[in-house]
Protein backbone atom coordinates (compact mmCIF):
# COMPACT_ATOMS: atom_id res chain seq x y z
CA UNK A 1 0.00 0.00 0.00
CA UNK A 2 0.98 3.62 -0.44
CA UNK A 3 1.64 4.02 3.30
CA UNK A 4 4.26 1.32 3.34
CA UNK A 5 6.06 2.42 0.22
CA UNK A 6 6.68 5.89 1.62
CA UNK A 7 4.76 8.95 0.60
CA UNK A 8 5.50 11.65 -1.90
CA UNK A 9 6.21 14.13 0.91
CA UNK A 10 7.40 13.99 4.54
CA UNK A 11 5.30 12.41 7.28
CA UNK A 12 4.50 15.84 8.74
CA UNK A 13 3.28 17.04 5.35
CA UNK A 14 1.19 13.92 5.02
CA UNK A 15 -0.30 14.36 8.49
CA UNK A 16 -1.26 17.98 7.83
CA UNK A 17 -2.57 17.08 4.37
CA UNK A 18 -4.76 14.31 5.74
CA UNK A 19 -5.99 16.32 8.71
CA UNK A 20 -5.66 20.00 7.92
CA UNK A 21 -5.92 22.16 11.06
CA UNK A 22 -8.09 25.26 11.39
CA UNK A 23 -9.99 24.92 8.14
CA UNK A 24 -12.89 27.34 7.96
CA UNK A 25 -16.13 25.39 7.99
CA UNK A 26 -19.28 26.67 6.39
CA UNK A 27 -21.37 25.92 9.46
CA UNK A 28 -19.22 27.71 12.05
CA UNK A 29 -19.64 31.35 12.83
CA UNK A 30 -16.08 32.55 12.79
CA UNK A 31 -16.00 36.30 13.23
CA UNK A 32 -12.77 37.51 11.73
CA UNK A 33 -10.90 40.67 12.69
CA UNK A 34 -8.91 40.47 9.49
CA UNK A 35 -9.33 38.62 6.20
CA UNK A 36 -6.70 38.21 3.50
CA UNK A 37 -6.96 36.54 0.13
CA UNK A 38 -4.18 35.86 -2.32
CA UNK A 39 -3.42 33.87 -5.43
CA UNK A 40 -5.50 33.43 -8.49
CA UNK A 41 -7.61 30.53 -9.54
CA UNK A 42 -6.31 30.82 -13.10
CA UNK A 43 -2.81 30.08 -11.81
CA UNK A 44 -4.16 27.04 -10.05
CA UNK A 45 -4.12 28.20 -6.47
CA UNK A 46 -5.93 30.61 -4.21
CA UNK A 47 -5.70 31.12 -0.44
CA UNK A 48 -7.90 32.82 2.10
CA UNK A 49 -6.71 33.47 5.67
CA UNK A 50 -8.84 34.80 8.55
CA UNK A 51 -7.55 35.95 11.92
CA UNK A 52 -8.99 36.88 15.31
CA UNK A 53 -6.91 39.36 17.29
CA UNK A 54 -6.63 40.28 20.96
CA UNK A 55 -6.61 44.03 20.42
CA UNK A 56 -5.04 44.88 23.79
CA UNK A 57 -2.08 42.58 23.36
CA UNK A 58 -1.83 42.69 19.57
CA UNK A 59 -1.77 38.91 19.52
CA UNK A 60 -3.44 36.49 17.07
CA UNK A 61 -5.78 34.38 19.18
CA UNK A 62 -7.34 32.20 16.51
CA UNK A 63 -7.32 31.72 12.77
CA UNK A 64 -9.03 29.89 9.90
CA UNK A 65 -8.18 29.33 6.25
CA UNK A 66 -9.39 27.91 3.00
CA UNK A 67 -7.61 27.11 -0.21
CA UNK A 68 -7.93 25.98 -3.77
CA UNK A 69 -4.53 24.43 -3.86
CA UNK A 70 -2.31 21.41 -4.03
CA UNK A 71 -1.15 19.16 -1.20
CA UNK A 72 1.83 21.40 -0.41
CA UNK A 73 -0.35 24.47 -0.13
CA UNK A 74 -2.76 22.61 2.17
CA UNK A 75 -0.04 21.17 4.42
CA UNK A 76 2.03 24.35 4.67
CA UNK A 77 -0.95 26.55 5.48
CA UNK A 78 -2.17 24.04 8.05
CA UNK A 79 1.24 24.23 9.76
CA UNK A 80 1.24 28.01 9.47
CA UNK A 81 -2.18 28.19 11.13
CA UNK A 82 -0.77 26.37 14.15
CA UNK A 83 2.33 28.54 14.25
CA UNK A 84 0.53 31.88 14.37
CA UNK A 85 -1.86 31.21 17.22
CA UNK A 86 -0.64 33.22 20.22
CA UNK A 87 1.84 35.07 18.08
CA UNK A 88 2.26 38.84 18.10
CA UNK A 89 1.08 40.50 14.91
CA UNK A 90 4.55 41.90 14.19
CA UNK A 91 6.10 38.46 14.52
CA UNK A 92 3.44 36.79 12.39
CA UNK A 93 4.05 39.47 9.77
CA UNK A 94 7.65 38.38 9.45
CA UNK A 95 7.02 34.66 8.89
CA UNK A 96 8.69 33.50 5.67
CA UNK A 97 8.02 30.42 3.54
CA UNK A 98 11.33 29.10 4.85
CA UNK A 99 10.00 29.17 8.45
CA UNK A 100 6.93 27.25 7.33
CA UNK A 101 8.97 24.68 5.43
CA UNK A 102 11.22 24.22 8.48
CA UNK A 103 8.15 23.34 10.54
CA UNK A 104 6.99 20.95 7.83
CA UNK A 105 10.22 19.01 7.87
CA UNK A 106 10.81 19.43 4.18
CA UNK A 107 9.17 20.11 0.86
CA UNK A 108 10.45 19.27 -2.61
CA UNK A 109 12.11 22.33 -4.17
CA UNK A 110 9.61 22.69 -6.98
CA UNK A 111 6.78 22.77 -4.45
CA UNK A 112 8.19 25.63 -2.37
CA UNK A 113 6.16 28.16 -4.35
CA UNK A 114 3.00 26.44 -3.13
CA UNK A 115 3.90 27.26 0.46
CA UNK A 116 4.26 30.95 -0.32
CA UNK A 117 0.51 31.43 -0.58
CA UNK A 118 -0.16 30.85 3.11
CA UNK A 119 2.14 33.49 4.53
CA UNK A 120 1.13 35.95 1.81
CA UNK A 121 -2.54 35.48 2.72
CA UNK A 122 -1.66 35.81 6.40
CA UNK A 123 0.10 39.13 5.78
CA UNK A 124 -2.91 40.30 3.78
CA UNK A 125 -5.16 39.37 6.72
CA UNK A 126 -2.96 41.31 9.15
CA UNK A 127 -2.98 44.30 6.77
CA UNK A 128 -6.75 44.05 6.67
CA UNK A 129 -6.84 44.07 10.48
CA UNK A 130 -4.59 47.16 10.58
CA UNK A 131 -6.77 48.87 8.01
CA UNK A 132 -9.99 48.12 9.91
CA UNK A 133 -8.48 49.52 13.10
CA UNK A 134 -7.01 52.73 11.72
CA UNK A 135 -3.43 51.49 11.96
CA UNK A 136 -2.54 52.07 8.31
CA UNK A 137 0.95 53.25 9.24
CA UNK A 138 1.79 49.66 10.19
CA UNK A 139 1.07 48.30 6.73
CA UNK A 140 4.33 47.56 5.01
CA UNK A 141 3.96 48.32 1.36
CA UNK A 142 6.22 46.04 -0.49
CA UNK A 143 6.71 48.29 -3.47
CA UNK A 144 7.87 46.40 -6.50
CA UNK A 145 10.97 47.81 -8.17
CA UNK A 146 11.36 47.55 -11.92
CA UNK A 147 14.68 45.85 -12.72
CA UNK A 148 14.35 45.25 -16.45
CA UNK A 149 13.14 48.50 -17.99
CA UNK A 150 12.66 47.06 -21.48
CA UNK A 151 10.38 44.18 -20.52
CA UNK A 152 9.06 45.81 -17.33
CA UNK A 153 10.09 43.00 -14.97
CA UNK A 154 10.13 43.73 -11.23
CA UNK A 155 12.16 42.31 -8.35
CA UNK A 156 8.96 40.61 -7.14
CA UNK A 157 8.66 38.76 -10.44
CA UNK A 158 12.29 37.67 -10.16
CA UNK A 159 11.55 36.35 -6.65
CA UNK A 160 8.49 34.50 -7.95
CA UNK A 161 10.53 32.99 -10.78
CA UNK A 162 13.08 31.72 -8.24
CA UNK A 163 10.30 30.20 -6.17
CA UNK A 164 8.99 28.49 -9.28
CA UNK A 165 12.36 26.93 -9.96
CA UNK A 166 14.60 29.37 -11.85
CA UNK A 167 18.21 28.84 -10.78
CA UNK A 168 20.26 30.33 -13.60
CA UNK A 169 20.11 33.61 -15.44
CA UNK A 170 18.94 31.74 -18.54
CA UNK A 171 16.07 30.08 -16.68
CA UNK A 172 15.16 33.46 -15.24
CA UNK A 173 15.06 34.86 -18.77
CA UNK A 174 12.91 32.01 -20.02
CA UNK A 175 10.35 32.67 -17.30
CA UNK A 176 10.32 36.46 -17.22
CA UNK A 177 11.76 37.52 -20.63
CA UNK A 178 13.98 39.85 -18.58
CA UNK A 179 17.12 41.18 -20.24
CA UNK A 180 16.05 40.00 -23.68
CA UNK A 181 16.16 43.45 -25.27
CA UNK A 182 19.07 45.68 -24.22
CA UNK A 183 20.48 43.34 -21.58
CA UNK A 184 21.60 46.18 -19.27
CA UNK A 185 19.95 44.63 -16.23
CA UNK A 186 21.88 41.35 -16.38
CA UNK A 187 24.24 42.22 -13.52
CA UNK A 188 21.54 43.43 -11.15
CA UNK A 189 19.21 40.56 -12.06
CA UNK A 190 21.98 38.02 -11.43
CA UNK A 191 22.61 39.56 -7.98
CA UNK A 192 18.89 39.38 -7.14
CA UNK A 193 18.76 35.81 -8.41
CA UNK A 194 21.53 34.83 -5.99
CA UNK A 195 19.86 36.78 -3.18
CA UNK A 196 16.47 35.10 -3.62
CA UNK A 197 17.97 31.61 -4.04
CA UNK A 198 19.83 32.14 -0.76
CA UNK A 199 16.69 33.55 0.89
CA UNK A 200 14.41 30.67 -0.06
CA UNK A 201 16.66 27.72 -0.65
CA UNK A 202 19.88 28.64 1.19
CA UNK A 203 21.36 26.77 4.12
CA UNK A 204 19.05 27.13 7.10
CA UNK A 205 21.98 27.55 9.50
CA UNK A 206 23.05 30.81 7.95
Amino acid sequence: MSNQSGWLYSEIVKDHFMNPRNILRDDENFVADGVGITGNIKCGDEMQFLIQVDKQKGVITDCRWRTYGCASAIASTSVLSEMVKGMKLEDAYRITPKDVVKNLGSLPEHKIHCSVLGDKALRAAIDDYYRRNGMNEKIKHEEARVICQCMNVTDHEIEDAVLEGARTYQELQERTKLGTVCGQCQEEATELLKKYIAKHFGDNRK
Partner: protein
Amino acid sequence: MPNRFIYLDHNATTPLHPEVKNTITDMFDVFGNPSSLHTVGRIARQKIEQAREIVANFIGAAPDEIIFVGSGSEANNTVLNSLSCPSQVCRLERNLRDEIITTSIEHPCVLETSKCLRERGTTVHYLPVDITGKVKLNTLKELLSEKTALVSVMYANNEIGTIQDIKAIAEIAHAQGAFFHTDAVQAVGKIPVNVKDLDVDFLTFSAHKIYGPKGVGALYVKRGTPFCPLIRGGHQERGRRAGTENTIGIVAFAKAIEMRKQEMSDEAVRLRRFKKMLIDGIKYKIPDVQFNGHPTDTLPGTLNISFAGAEGESILLYLDLEGIGVSTGSACASGSLEPSHVILATGVGAELAHGSIRISMGRENTTDDIYYTVSALERVVKKVRDMSTTYQSKLV
Protein backbone atom coordinates in the same frame (compact mmCIF):
# COMPACT_ATOMS: atom_id res chain seq x y z
CA MET B 1 -10.12 0.36 2.14
CA PRO B 2 -9.59 -2.48 -0.31
CA ASN B 3 -6.84 -4.99 0.41
CA ARG B 4 -5.01 -4.22 -2.80
CA PHE B 5 -4.09 -1.02 -4.56
CA ILE B 6 -6.60 -0.13 -7.28
CA TYR B 7 -4.51 0.89 -10.26
CA LEU B 8 -6.39 3.26 -12.57
CA ASP B 9 -3.48 4.77 -14.45
CA HIS B 10 -3.07 2.42 -17.42
CA ASN B 11 -2.46 5.28 -19.86
CA ALA B 12 0.72 6.04 -17.93
CA THR B 13 1.87 2.45 -18.01
CA THR B 14 0.56 -1.07 -17.42
CA PRO B 15 1.65 -4.04 -15.32
CA LEU B 16 3.25 -6.92 -17.21
CA HIS B 17 0.84 -9.55 -18.47
CA PRO B 18 1.57 -12.85 -16.62
CA GLU B 19 2.27 -14.51 -19.99
CA VAL B 20 4.72 -11.73 -20.85
CA LYS B 21 6.47 -12.32 -17.52
CA ASN B 22 6.91 -15.98 -18.46
CA THR B 23 8.30 -15.04 -21.84
CA ILE B 24 10.80 -12.67 -20.24
CA THR B 25 12.09 -15.35 -17.85
CA ASP B 26 12.30 -17.83 -20.70
CA MET B 27 14.36 -15.31 -22.66
CA PHE B 28 16.99 -14.73 -19.95
CA ASP B 29 19.33 -17.24 -21.54
CA VAL B 30 18.98 -15.92 -25.08
CA PHE B 31 21.94 -13.60 -24.71
CA GLY B 32 23.50 -13.71 -28.17
CA ASN B 33 24.12 -10.61 -30.21
CA PRO B 34 21.60 -10.92 -33.04
CA SER B 35 24.28 -9.65 -35.42
CA SER B 36 26.67 -12.52 -34.59
CA LEU B 37 26.90 -15.18 -37.25
CA HIS B 38 27.39 -18.13 -34.90
CA THR B 39 24.66 -20.32 -33.44
CA VAL B 40 24.12 -18.24 -30.28
CA GLY B 41 23.70 -15.07 -32.33
CA ARG B 42 21.46 -16.73 -34.86
CA ILE B 43 19.11 -17.95 -32.12
CA ALA B 44 18.64 -14.34 -30.95
CA ARG B 45 18.21 -13.15 -34.55
CA GLN B 46 15.52 -15.75 -35.17
CA LYS B 47 13.62 -14.69 -32.03
CA ILE B 48 13.67 -11.05 -33.10
CA GLU B 49 12.50 -11.78 -36.62
CA GLN B 50 9.65 -13.96 -35.31
CA ALA B 51 8.66 -11.11 -33.02
CA ARG B 52 8.82 -8.64 -35.89
CA GLU B 53 6.37 -10.73 -37.87
CA ILE B 54 3.89 -10.91 -35.01
CA VAL B 55 4.14 -7.17 -34.33
CA ALA B 56 3.86 -6.25 -38.03
CA ASN B 57 0.95 -8.60 -38.59
CA PHE B 58 -1.00 -7.08 -35.71
CA ILE B 59 -1.22 -3.68 -37.44
CA GLY B 60 -1.43 -5.00 -41.01
CA ALA B 61 2.17 -4.14 -41.91
CA ALA B 62 4.93 -6.13 -43.58
CA PRO B 63 7.80 -7.20 -41.28
CA ASP B 64 10.33 -5.00 -43.10
CA GLU B 65 8.14 -1.98 -42.36
CA ILE B 66 8.68 -2.33 -38.61
CA ILE B 67 11.62 -0.69 -36.82
CA PHE B 68 12.09 -1.59 -33.17
CA VAL B 69 13.06 1.40 -31.06
CA GLY B 70 13.56 2.22 -27.39
CA SER B 71 10.25 3.98 -26.78
CA GLY B 72 7.29 5.73 -28.31
CA SER B 73 9.08 9.01 -27.67
CA GLU B 74 12.06 7.81 -29.71
CA ALA B 75 9.81 6.80 -32.59
CA ASN B 76 8.10 10.20 -32.59
CA ASN B 77 11.41 12.04 -32.39
CA THR B 78 12.68 9.94 -35.29
CA VAL B 79 9.78 10.82 -37.58
CA LEU B 80 9.82 14.55 -36.87
CA ASN B 81 13.58 14.83 -37.25
CA SER B 82 13.54 12.61 -40.32
CA LEU B 83 11.06 14.79 -42.21
CA SER B 84 12.83 18.03 -41.30
CA CYS B 85 16.40 16.91 -41.92
CA PRO B 86 18.12 19.83 -43.67
CA SER B 87 20.47 17.68 -45.77
CA GLN B 88 19.95 18.13 -49.50
CA VAL B 89 19.50 14.37 -50.04
CA CYS B 90 16.68 14.25 -47.47
CA ARG B 91 15.10 17.43 -48.79
CA LEU B 92 15.06 16.09 -52.35
CA GLU B 93 13.42 12.89 -51.13
CA ARG B 94 10.53 14.94 -49.81
CA ASN B 95 10.38 17.20 -52.88
CA LEU B 96 11.95 20.13 -51.03
CA ARG B 97 8.99 20.35 -48.69
CA ASP B 98 9.98 21.68 -45.27
CA GLU B 99 6.89 22.45 -43.20
CA ILE B 100 5.36 20.34 -40.45
CA ILE B 101 1.76 20.41 -39.27
CA THR B 102 0.89 18.83 -35.92
CA THR B 103 -1.68 19.48 -33.19
CA SER B 104 -1.89 21.36 -29.92
CA ILE B 105 -2.79 18.20 -27.98
CA GLU B 106 0.17 15.96 -28.87
CA HIS B 107 2.32 14.22 -26.30
CA PRO B 108 5.22 16.41 -25.05
CA CYS B 109 7.68 14.31 -27.07
CA VAL B 110 6.09 15.70 -30.25
CA LEU B 111 5.48 19.21 -28.90
CA GLU B 112 8.99 19.63 -27.49
CA THR B 113 10.64 18.19 -30.59
CA SER B 114 8.63 20.40 -32.93
CA LYS B 115 9.43 23.40 -30.75
CA CYS B 116 13.12 22.62 -31.09
CA LEU B 117 12.77 22.15 -34.87
CA ARG B 118 11.06 25.52 -35.02
CA GLU B 119 14.03 27.11 -33.29
CA ARG B 120 16.24 25.51 -35.93
CA GLY B 121 14.20 27.11 -38.70
CA THR B 122 11.50 24.58 -39.61
CA THR B 123 8.03 26.05 -39.97
CA VAL B 124 5.66 24.19 -37.65
CA HIS B 125 1.90 24.72 -37.49
CA TYR B 126 -0.25 23.54 -34.58
CA LEU B 127 -3.82 22.51 -35.35
CA PRO B 128 -6.50 23.54 -32.86
CA VAL B 129 -9.09 21.10 -31.53
CA ASP B 130 -12.76 21.50 -30.68
CA ILE B 131 -14.31 21.08 -27.23
CA THR B 132 -14.33 17.28 -27.62
CA GLY B 133 -10.65 17.19 -28.56
CA LYS B 134 -11.18 16.51 -32.28
CA VAL B 135 -8.75 18.17 -34.65
CA LYS B 136 -10.29 20.88 -36.80
CA LEU B 137 -10.06 19.49 -40.31
CA ASN B 138 -10.87 22.83 -41.97
CA THR B 139 -7.81 24.40 -40.41
CA LEU B 140 -5.74 21.46 -41.63
CA LYS B 141 -6.97 22.03 -45.18
CA GLU B 142 -6.14 25.73 -44.91
CA LEU B 143 -2.63 25.13 -43.59
CA LEU B 144 -1.71 22.36 -46.02
CA SER B 145 0.28 23.47 -49.03
CA GLU B 146 2.93 22.29 -51.47
CA LYS B 147 5.41 23.19 -48.71
CA THR B 148 4.01 20.66 -46.21
CA ALA B 149 6.39 17.75 -45.67
CA LEU B 150 4.63 16.03 -42.78
CA VAL B 151 1.33 16.01 -40.94
CA SER B 152 1.52 14.35 -37.52
CA VAL B 153 -1.69 13.76 -35.55
CA MET B 154 -1.97 11.49 -32.53
CA TYR B 155 -4.43 8.62 -32.86
CA ALA B 156 -5.94 8.62 -29.37
CA ASN B 157 -5.17 11.24 -26.77
CA ASN B 158 -3.47 10.07 -23.59
CA GLU B 159 -5.24 12.55 -21.32
CA ILE B 160 -8.80 12.72 -22.58
CA GLY B 161 -8.96 9.60 -24.77
CA THR B 162 -10.38 11.32 -27.86
CA ILE B 163 -9.86 9.25 -31.02
CA GLN B 164 -9.14 11.19 -34.22
CA ASP B 165 -10.50 10.38 -37.66
CA ILE B 166 -7.07 9.23 -38.77
CA LYS B 167 -8.17 7.78 -42.09
CA ALA B 168 -9.80 11.05 -43.14
CA ILE B 169 -6.86 13.14 -41.92
CA ALA B 170 -4.34 10.94 -43.75
CA GLU B 171 -6.37 11.30 -46.91
CA ILE B 172 -6.41 15.10 -46.63
CA ALA B 173 -2.62 15.15 -46.04
CA HIS B 174 -1.94 12.83 -48.97
CA ALA B 175 -4.17 14.85 -51.29
CA GLN B 176 -1.67 17.68 -50.85
CA GLY B 177 1.31 15.37 -51.26
CA ALA B 178 2.36 15.45 -47.60
CA PHE B 179 3.44 12.42 -45.59
CA PHE B 180 1.34 11.41 -42.61
CA HIS B 181 2.40 10.17 -39.18
CA THR B 182 0.25 9.13 -36.24
CA ASP B 183 1.37 8.61 -32.67
CA ALA B 184 -0.77 5.55 -31.90
CA VAL B 185 0.83 4.70 -28.54
CA GLN B 186 -2.55 4.87 -26.76
CA ALA B 187 -4.47 3.21 -29.59
CA VAL B 188 -2.62 0.06 -30.71
CA GLY B 189 -3.71 -2.82 -28.50
CA LYS B 190 -6.78 -0.99 -27.21
CA ILE B 191 -8.75 -0.49 -30.43
CA PRO B 192 -8.29 -2.13 -33.85
CA VAL B 193 -5.56 -0.38 -35.86
CA ASN B 194 -4.61 -1.31 -39.42
CA VAL B 195 -2.02 0.74 -41.29
CA LYS B 196 -3.19 -0.35 -44.73
CA ASP B 197 -6.78 0.52 -43.98
CA LEU B 198 -5.80 3.87 -42.50
CA ASP B 199 -3.22 4.50 -45.23
CA VAL B 200 -0.65 6.14 -42.94
CA ASP B 201 3.07 6.50 -43.74
CA PHE B 202 4.39 6.36 -40.18
CA LEU B 203 2.84 4.94 -37.03
CA THR B 204 4.26 4.89 -33.51
CA PHE B 205 3.37 2.32 -30.85
CA SER B 206 4.82 1.01 -27.64
CA ALA B 207 4.96 -2.14 -25.49
CA HIS B 208 4.51 -0.85 -21.97
CA LYS B 209 1.06 0.62 -22.60
CA ILE B 210 -0.25 -2.84 -23.47
CA TYR B 211 1.14 -5.04 -20.66
CA GLY B 212 4.58 -5.38 -22.23
CA PRO B 213 7.88 -4.17 -20.79
CA LYS B 214 9.14 -0.59 -20.68
CA GLY B 215 11.94 0.44 -23.01
CA VAL B 216 10.69 -0.99 -26.27
CA GLY B 217 8.57 0.60 -28.96
CA ALA B 218 8.05 0.23 -32.67
CA LEU B 219 7.82 2.54 -35.63
CA TYR B 220 5.96 1.53 -38.76
CA VAL B 221 7.46 3.10 -41.87
CA LYS B 222 5.61 2.42 -45.10
CA ARG B 223 7.80 1.05 -47.88
CA GLY B 224 9.21 3.79 -50.07
CA THR B 225 8.71 6.57 -47.51
CA PRO B 226 11.67 8.93 -46.96
CA PHE B 227 13.58 8.10 -43.82
CA CYS B 228 16.58 9.51 -42.01
CA PRO B 229 17.84 7.65 -38.91
CA LEU B 230 17.96 9.37 -35.54
CA ILE B 231 20.54 6.95 -34.13
CA ARG B 232 23.39 6.05 -36.48
CA GLY B 233 26.37 3.81 -36.44
CA GLY B 234 25.07 0.30 -36.98
CA HIS B 235 23.37 -1.86 -39.54
CA GLN B 236 20.66 -2.96 -37.07
CA GLU B 237 17.04 -2.57 -38.12
CA ARG B 238 18.22 -2.35 -41.73
CA GLY B 239 20.40 0.62 -40.92
CA ARG B 240 17.46 2.60 -39.64
CA ARG B 241 18.14 2.39 -35.93
CA ALA B 242 21.65 1.63 -34.72
CA GLY B 243 22.32 -0.14 -31.43
CA THR B 244 22.31 -3.79 -30.41
CA GLU B 245 18.71 -4.93 -30.31
CA ASN B 246 16.81 -5.23 -27.03
CA THR B 247 16.15 -8.92 -27.69
CA ILE B 248 14.24 -9.68 -24.49
CA GLY B 249 12.16 -6.52 -24.79
CA ILE B 250 11.29 -7.12 -28.42
CA VAL B 251 10.24 -10.73 -27.85
CA ALA B 252 8.21 -9.68 -24.80
CA PHE B 253 6.58 -6.93 -26.90
CA ALA B 254 5.48 -9.56 -29.42
CA LYS B 255 4.10 -11.71 -26.59
CA ALA B 256 2.15 -8.74 -25.24
CA ILE B 257 0.70 -8.25 -28.70
CA GLU B 258 -0.26 -11.91 -28.99
CA MET B 259 -2.14 -11.56 -25.72
CA ARG B 260 -3.81 -8.39 -26.98
CA LYS B 261 -5.07 -10.30 -30.00
CA GLN B 262 -6.86 -12.66 -27.62
CA GLU B 263 -8.06 -10.19 -25.00
CA MET B 264 -8.50 -6.82 -26.63
CA SER B 265 -12.05 -6.93 -27.92
CA ASP B 266 -13.63 -8.49 -24.79
CA GLU B 267 -11.67 -6.12 -22.61
CA ALA B 268 -12.88 -3.11 -24.62
CA VAL B 269 -16.49 -4.15 -24.01
CA ARG B 270 -15.83 -4.58 -20.28
CA LEU B 271 -13.99 -1.25 -19.96
CA ARG B 272 -16.74 0.61 -21.81
CA ARG B 273 -19.23 -0.81 -19.32
CA PHE B 274 -17.00 0.23 -16.41
CA LYS B 275 -16.72 3.70 -17.85
CA LYS B 276 -20.47 4.02 -18.08
CA MET B 277 -20.76 2.87 -14.46
CA LEU B 278 -18.20 5.49 -13.44
CA ILE B 279 -19.95 8.26 -15.33
CA ASP B 280 -23.39 7.32 -13.98
CA GLY B 281 -22.07 6.90 -10.42
CA ILE B 282 -20.18 10.18 -10.42
CA LYS B 283 -23.10 12.10 -11.94
CA TYR B 284 -25.40 10.68 -9.27
CA LYS B 285 -23.10 11.20 -6.28
CA ILE B 286 -21.10 14.34 -7.07
CA PRO B 287 -22.51 17.69 -8.22
CA ASP B 288 -20.73 20.13 -10.56
CA VAL B 289 -18.62 17.74 -12.58
CA GLN B 290 -17.65 17.85 -16.21
CA PHE B 291 -16.46 14.97 -18.37
CA ASN B 292 -13.74 16.02 -20.79
CA GLY B 293 -13.18 14.59 -24.23
CA HIS B 294 -15.43 13.04 -26.86
CA PRO B 295 -18.60 11.25 -25.72
CA THR B 296 -18.28 8.33 -28.17
CA ASP B 297 -15.03 8.50 -30.17
CA THR B 298 -12.92 7.74 -27.16
CA LEU B 299 -10.68 5.05 -25.71
CA PRO B 300 -12.70 2.34 -23.91
CA GLY B 301 -10.96 2.73 -20.54
CA THR B 302 -10.10 6.43 -20.38
CA LEU B 303 -12.19 8.95 -18.46
CA ASN B 304 -11.16 12.54 -17.78
CA ILE B 305 -13.20 14.45 -15.20
CA SER B 306 -13.13 18.03 -13.94
CA PHE B 307 -14.47 18.82 -10.49
CA ALA B 308 -15.39 22.48 -10.02
CA GLY B 309 -13.60 24.06 -7.07
CA ALA B 310 -11.37 21.07 -6.37
CA GLU B 311 -7.70 21.07 -7.32
CA GLY B 312 -6.47 17.99 -9.18
CA GLU B 313 -3.31 17.13 -7.29
CA SER B 314 -5.13 17.21 -3.96
CA ILE B 315 -7.74 14.82 -5.33
CA LEU B 316 -5.02 12.54 -6.69
CA LEU B 317 -3.13 12.39 -3.39
CA TYR B 318 -6.24 11.88 -1.24
CA LEU B 319 -7.27 9.05 -3.59
CA ASP B 320 -3.77 7.59 -3.23
CA LEU B 321 -4.31 7.53 0.53
CA GLU B 322 -7.56 5.67 -0.13
CA GLY B 323 -5.65 3.10 -2.15
CA ILE B 324 -6.47 4.31 -5.65
CA GLY B 325 -3.99 5.45 -8.28
CA VAL B 326 -5.14 8.02 -10.85
CA SER B 327 -3.33 10.84 -12.60
CA THR B 328 -3.65 14.50 -13.33
CA GLY B 329 -2.14 16.57 -16.09
CA SER B 330 -2.62 19.64 -13.99
CA ALA B 331 -0.37 22.16 -12.38
CA CYS B 332 1.35 21.06 -9.26
CA ALA B 333 1.66 17.37 -10.01
CA SER B 334 4.13 18.04 -12.75
CA GLY B 335 5.85 20.84 -10.91
CA SER B 336 4.89 23.52 -13.37
CA LEU B 337 2.16 26.07 -12.86
CA GLU B 338 0.48 25.32 -16.15
CA PRO B 339 -2.65 23.22 -16.20
CA SER B 340 -3.00 20.43 -18.76
CA HIS B 341 -2.23 21.75 -22.25
CA VAL B 342 -4.68 19.22 -23.69
CA ILE B 343 -7.65 20.29 -21.61
CA LEU B 344 -6.85 23.97 -22.13
CA ALA B 345 -6.68 23.32 -25.90
CA THR B 346 -10.23 21.98 -25.84
CA GLY B 347 -11.34 25.35 -24.53
CA VAL B 348 -12.12 24.28 -20.98
CA GLY B 349 -11.33 27.17 -18.60
CA ALA B 350 -8.21 27.20 -16.45
CA GLU B 351 -10.06 26.44 -13.21
CA LEU B 352 -11.70 23.28 -14.50
CA ALA B 353 -8.44 22.31 -16.17
CA HIS B 354 -6.65 22.58 -12.81
CA GLY B 355 -9.36 20.45 -11.26
CA SER B 356 -9.16 17.55 -13.66
CA ILE B 357 -8.14 13.96 -13.07
CA ARG B 358 -7.69 11.07 -15.47
CA ILE B 359 -8.92 7.58 -14.75
CA SER B 360 -7.53 4.97 -17.13
CA MET B 361 -8.69 1.41 -16.57
CA GLY B 362 -7.18 -1.86 -17.68
CA ARG B 363 -7.39 -5.63 -17.79
CA GLU B 364 -7.10 -6.25 -14.04
CA ASN B 365 -9.83 -3.86 -12.92
CA THR B 366 -13.08 -5.28 -11.56
CA THR B 367 -16.64 -4.11 -10.98
CA ASP B 368 -15.82 -3.75 -7.27
CA ASP B 369 -12.94 -1.42 -8.13
CA ILE B 370 -15.38 0.83 -9.91
CA TYR B 371 -17.89 0.91 -7.06
CA TYR B 372 -15.14 1.63 -4.55
CA THR B 373 -13.68 4.37 -6.76
CA VAL B 374 -17.01 6.18 -7.03
CA SER B 375 -17.49 6.14 -3.26
CA ALA B 376 -13.90 7.24 -2.60
CA LEU B 377 -14.25 10.05 -5.14
CA GLU B 378 -17.41 11.22 -3.43
CA ARG B 379 -15.58 11.45 -0.07
CA VAL B 380 -12.43 12.99 -1.47
CA VAL B 381 -14.07 15.63 -3.65
CA LYS B 382 -16.28 16.67 -0.74
CA LYS B 383 -13.22 16.98 1.50
CA VAL B 384 -11.31 19.08 -1.03
CA ARG B 385 -14.33 21.25 -1.77
CA ASP B 386 -15.01 21.81 1.94
CA MET B 387 -11.69 23.59 2.23
CA SER B 388 -11.90 25.32 -1.13
CA THR B 389 -12.00 29.09 -1.53
CA THR B 390 -13.97 28.77 -4.73
CA TYR B 391 -16.53 26.12 -3.91
CA GLN B 392 -18.59 27.57 -1.08
CA SER B 393 -22.18 28.51 -0.65
CA LYS B 394 -20.94 31.66 1.07
CA LEU B 395 -17.56 33.28 1.05
CA VAL B 396 -16.68 35.21 4.20
